[in-house]
């Protein structure tokens, strides 16, 4: 169908009124055909970045290139970029069929397909997004997941080389989300359209993106493959945002991190002396029968046991050490760290 185009963003800055800018010098190079997640907490500027790429918002500074072409001064309607809105923004007074046909009908007469061709393409698209039976319905008459698919079909109707999705699964319930995101990934692999989607859900980003751009305060903190982001976080923010690690403050002295008042043995680290933060995944914080901490909760998720332990006035997530088969609520235990990632504390 459509070949994707690469996206190149440099020094993008956007400020709304006074105060902190929404975007603060964003650089991002997305390869042709890539599937990229823009991930970050709310207010990190990810939606603003997406809207600038679509031409719905204009940057105060910086440059956007799509397929090597500078997009400055190109209005949204001339960009040919597919955009799926968070709340779908389907045309409420049109049927599903007319919604999908819209992008073809508004073309100048010379490039507008004949009516039969429009009907054929709309039906193909509805079949592609697996809702061919809905063409006569109105947006109000269909479910959230179906609206999402129709919105996607409508965006794909203009054969965009670049597809942008704003929180595409945000308004759906958990099971529909999971099905839809895998389906979307499959669709991307078939069509090859360069795709960027905004999400605040790290699981979602991890599950389907080729690469994740992690945003914070209007900057891209790290842009990497999911595994790399997980294994080599660039700073404490990335490490803290991804996964549900325990954040343990510590003090480094002479290459040894000391966790007092937490009842944990010291660990060797290469950080210079001073206060630091250690990120310890629940699976790497091991509890064994002993003294120092108390088991507060035990949960089995079908694969492994998860513990919540109270230690030094905090609640930590831990796992039972090998050999401790039946920890129970109220058991005393001792903690040890199998693996930790250290970052100097930000002053």
């Amino acid at each position: 169908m459509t070949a994707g185009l690469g996206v190149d963003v440099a020094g993008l800055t956007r400020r709304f009124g006074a105060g902190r800018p929404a975007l603060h010098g964003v650089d991002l190079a997305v390869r042709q055909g890539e599937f990229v997640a823009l991930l970050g907490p709310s207010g990190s500027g990810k939606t603003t970045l997406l809207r600038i790429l679509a031409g719905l918002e204009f940057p105060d500074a910086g440059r956007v290139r799509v397929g090597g072409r500078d997009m400055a001064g190109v209005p949204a309607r001339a960009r040919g970029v597919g955009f799926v809105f968070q709340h779908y923004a389907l045309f409420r007074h049109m049927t599903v069929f007319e919604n999908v046909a819209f992008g073809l009908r508004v073309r100048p007469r010379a490039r507008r397909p004949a009516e039969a061709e429009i009907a054929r393409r709309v039906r193909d698209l509805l079949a592609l997004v697996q809702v061919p039976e809905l063409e006569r319905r109105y947006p109000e008459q269909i479910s959230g997941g179906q609206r999402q698919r129709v919105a996607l079909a409508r965006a794909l109707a203009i054969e965009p080389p670049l597809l942008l999705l704003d929180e595409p699964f945000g308004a759906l319930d958990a099971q529909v989300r999971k099905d839809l995101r895998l389906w979307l990934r499959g669709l991307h692999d078939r069509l090859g359209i360069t795709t960027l989607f905004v999400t605040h859900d790290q699981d979602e980003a991890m599950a389907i993106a080729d690469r994740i751009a992690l945003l914070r305060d209007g900057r891209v903190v790290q842009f990497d493959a999911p595994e790399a982001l997980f294994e080599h976080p660039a700073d404490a923010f990335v490490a803290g945002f991804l996964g549900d690690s325990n954040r343990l403050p510590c003090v480094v002295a002479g290459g040894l991190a000391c966790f007092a008042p937490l009842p944990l043995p010291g660990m060797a680290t290469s950080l210079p002396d001073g206060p630091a933060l250690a990120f310890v995944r629940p699976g790497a914080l091991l509890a064994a029968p002993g003294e120092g901490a108390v088991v507060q909760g035990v949960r089995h998720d079908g694969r492994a046991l998860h513990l919540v332990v109270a230690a030094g006035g905090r609640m930590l997530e831990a796992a039972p050490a090998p050999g401790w088969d039946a920890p129970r609520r109220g058991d005393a235990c001792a903690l040890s760290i199998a693996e930790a990632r250290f970052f100097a504390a930000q002053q």
Partner: protein
Amino acid sequence: MARRLALLAALLVLAVLFLLPLVAVFAEALRRGWDVALAAIAEPDALAAISLTLLVAAIAVPVNLLGGVAAAWCIAKFDFPGKRLLVTLVELPFAVSPVISGLVWVLLFGAHGWLGPWLQAHGLRIVFALPGLVLATVFVTFPFVARTLIPLMQDQGREEEEAAATLGAGGLQTFFRVTLPNIRWALLSGVLLCNARAMGEFGAVSVVSGHVRGQTNTMPLHVEILYNEYQFAGAFAVAALLALLALVTLGAKALLERLAGRQAGAAG
């Protein structure tokens, strides 16, 4: 029990305040029979008043349709400096006394007004003529369309327009294919209210009219003149016709709302 009493009281108030006067108008108009009433309406001055009223409404309503949609579109879909001022200005005609709404045009365009001498020199007549009547009516009835549309358009937001833009639609295409269909029922309802008021306006029109019989008298003004001359049958006959126009307008509005409701129901 208490609820029934409250309902009864409400119905009683409605009957006394709204139904009774309406019945009285029609009863009074027909007291001396259909022939007298019809003769009063068929009288040349009355016919002139009726056609002038329809003409003024036929000009003022389309003007306010366009102006109201434009104002509501700007206010609901865009942010610009001075937006609050514009919102306030839209409501101004409701806040100002109709007499003042008429008087400003006399002050501007009357024989002793700011632009009066210039107009006279060029042989143009605005006050005490059709243009003055239209100006006064447009001013008084401006808020009806705009105020019906603004809350609806604000509620609908800009996303559908943005979606249309990303799909390649230009400004006019977006307006006619997306914005206008989304507001059509509210727009019709606003236009009908605007029309009812345009035909019934008395105060502002009275100031700029000059009350020249057969020339610058609209229906409400004609009713007053007849009444002051003790021609009650004629006065009530024309008044009944005016009331009938209002009732037809309200009926049309109610019908439209039901149709809109049915369509929304079919869609929902």
